[in-house]
């Protein structure tokens, strides 16, 4: 499959997400740990967090918030901007995903690919205990 076809798959996935309730969510990333002090290691201080927008994203099922589909192009731009090795490392480093002011913990991620080209990521989420 040529690059043109790979791009088409990515664009098709993005269009499908937009047309099926695609919305923006926020990936909450912790700042680098403070060096030279043990305060964070002892739980005395917490790191700063930065919310990075991911768009488009949509829950896989209308009535469930356990699986979130995210556009691969949105993730790719974050990986490039933040110099992460892979999407998996990005998601493992994140503190969670913020949807409607609720922070969901990312418990896993699956990459959907077409001929080796990621076109969508499925994040397994755990809602906070209320």
């Amino acid at each position, binding site marked *: 499959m040529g690059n043109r076809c790979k791009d088409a798959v990515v664009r098709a996935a993005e269009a499908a997400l937009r047309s099926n309730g695609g919305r923006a969510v926020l990936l909450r990333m*912790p700042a680098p*740990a403070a060096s030279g002090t043990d*305060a*964070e*290691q*002892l739980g*005395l201080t917490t790191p700063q967090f930065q919310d990075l927008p991911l768009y488009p994203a949509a829950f896989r099922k209308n009535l469930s918030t356990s699986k979130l589909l995210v556009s691969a192009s949105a993730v790719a731009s974050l990986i490039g901007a933040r110099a992460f090795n892979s999407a998996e490392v990005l998601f*493992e*480093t994140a503190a969670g995903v913020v949807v409607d002011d609720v922070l969901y*913990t990312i418990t896993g991620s699956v990459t959907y690919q077409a001929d080796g080209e990621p076109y969508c990521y499925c994040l397994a989420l755990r809602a906070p205990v209320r």
Partner: protein
Amino acid sequence: MQNAKDTFYEVLRGRLAAINPERTIVLRGVERPGVLVEENELITTVALPECFRLRWTQAAADPNGALATIALECEIDYETAGNAFNSGMDRGRSLAAMDAELQSTVNATPQSAPKSNYTGLANGAAAVPMSTSIWWGPLVFGKTKITDDRIGRTATVVVNSFQEAGEL
């Protein structure tokens, strides 16, 4: 209780760094000795392999005496997948090395340390020595656990301290 927990972590981390300086982890971009307290880290960090993960479980207080004695049980989880260059076939030896490191760290004499109050670190101040010490018993190794390609173990140690006046 919190001061005893903080002091034990600091002692363990310092001894581990002295025994094997190469056992390190990188957490949020900063390299540090390979030991962490689960309740002080992001939830996503707790399954980190090749390091010692401290988890405080049971607590008991004995009010008899001038100062109450507090006993805290600390579980120390660790697991390894071995060396990737050896296709993980040395994971048993890798676990044995972690066993030995932990035993040397916890069972080294003295099995006690002066207790300190670390809350000042939040404001850039230094830790403040307290009047009493913490002390701990022998390390008890649990059964070997196998999870996917990892082999691991949970060891347990009981950390004791006196509850000083005004201490949380």
